[in-house]
């Protein structure tokens, strides 16, 4: 099942415009890409919040805070 607009190079190149597959589906591809972009931010925001939470739970002891601020770590 070919989806490319070019099925032969036996042509005058002056007549060739698009060379990528799925010509006519650009709007759908744009919507998919935009949705994926937004979902990435949602995931990243949650991931970052959880990372800070875990860091505080695991490492924020008074000894570690003292070492980190004094440059021992």
């Amino acid at each position, binding site marked *: 099942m070919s989806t490319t607009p070019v099925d032969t190079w036996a042509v005058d190149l002056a007549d060739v415009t698009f060379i990528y597959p799925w010509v006519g589906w*650009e709007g759908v591809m744009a919507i998919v890409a935009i949705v994926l*972009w937004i979902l990435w*931010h949602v995931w*990243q*925001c949650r991931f970052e919040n959880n990372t*800070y939470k875990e860091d505080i739970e695991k490492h924020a002891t008074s000894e570690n805070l003292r070492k980190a601020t004094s440059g021992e*770590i």
Partner: protein
Amino acid sequence: MDTDVAAITTVFTEFYYWVTVALMFLIHVGFCMYEVGASRIKNHMHTLLKNSMLIPLVTITWFFFGWWIYWAFPGGPGITGGIGHPDPSFAEAYTPWGESMGPRLDDRISGVFWAAFLLFAWTAASIVSGAVIERIRKFAFWMIAIMIGSVTWSIDAAWGWHYSGWMVELLGYHDAYASGVIHAIAGGTALGVLIVLGPRLGKFAADGTPRDLLPHNPWLVCIGLFMIYTGFWGFYVACNVPVATPDFIAGQITGTTQTATTIYLTPTTLSAITMNFLMSLAGGMLAGYMVSKGDAFWTYSGGLAGIITASAGNDLYHPYQALIIGAIGTFLMYKLHYWVERTFKVDDAVGAVAVHGYAGFIGLVIAGFVLWGHPSSPYEGFAAINPVGNFVGAIIMFWVLGFIPGWILAKILQTFNLLRIPREVELLGLDFGSMQEADRARKEVTAAELAAHSSG
């Protein structure tokens, strides 16, 4: 490309912009080196990733809407024309599903031109990145990066860095190498964010006296700045149209002599901007060395500030003018940096607001006076360059499109507790967890190696 001359011209132009993109990558390498060098060891990897990830995020959003904004809003809209003024076919072609947003054999320029503008967008966002190190959340910074990289810089470029921009037409605004449209807006945005974000813990004493949070690696900082100088060549060259005929420009120019032009399609030469780039760099470094009394960081930053100050008019200045203007901008931005720090308790970790924001603003104002009366455009009816137009333009760049959106977005992020990292994490360092993991892994490997050695 059906004749040899047409083919050479087209491929030369395509290659010309492609080279600028490769060169401008070095700006980003430089910014990363510079920021990592300026941050403390406990924050290195976070600092690096915070900056690096603006590359994919600004790239995709520049594809989705940034490039379209540039072509949609030169008229305001509603000031000198509607959406797409003066030729709506461009805006239509550059929607995210537009016909010029994919490979086609009858359009060999759109892709490289899109990319050159994208690299400007990365630069604008990257300028803000350095100012906010060691306490901003990645999510927050990336939202700010998208705002300036794919929205506000694109609007300012449409208004003041387009051959039909309303600021050019009505104000006579002239900013050939982006003193305002990249640097002043980025400095203004950084200042707006910094005021909401607040200083790093320990930056100011209880009585308000600023403390130096010294760079972890001054060498890396300086080499990073050197790298930005290198990439700046690509930036300058990308601001030009390499060759244009009077027919192509379609303005008031008569005859058949072809020329390089600025983004406004006003004639200049590559030689002019090369001499002026170097002379303004020299003026900035000399002044930076003097005003900072030999401080390496401010001497290198002075070189950048010198170029940035002179950039608005470096298509037209005499090299002596570029030299002096670069020196003046550097002197003033240095003084302003410490005055703002002391007076308003603003912690600009790398001096980005000063080097880019103040120097860019000052450069626009100076260009308005020095270039007073020079035509801003090859088209009839456009205002000539003048002091008022460039001063108003500087306010629009730094305050209206820079400071205000930066402050508002930072306030929104702060409202949802998404702007600043937790206090404990800031004290521990953003890389504390991963550094502990790495330390544990190293100890395990060492123990395993010792065990193998003992049993062998």
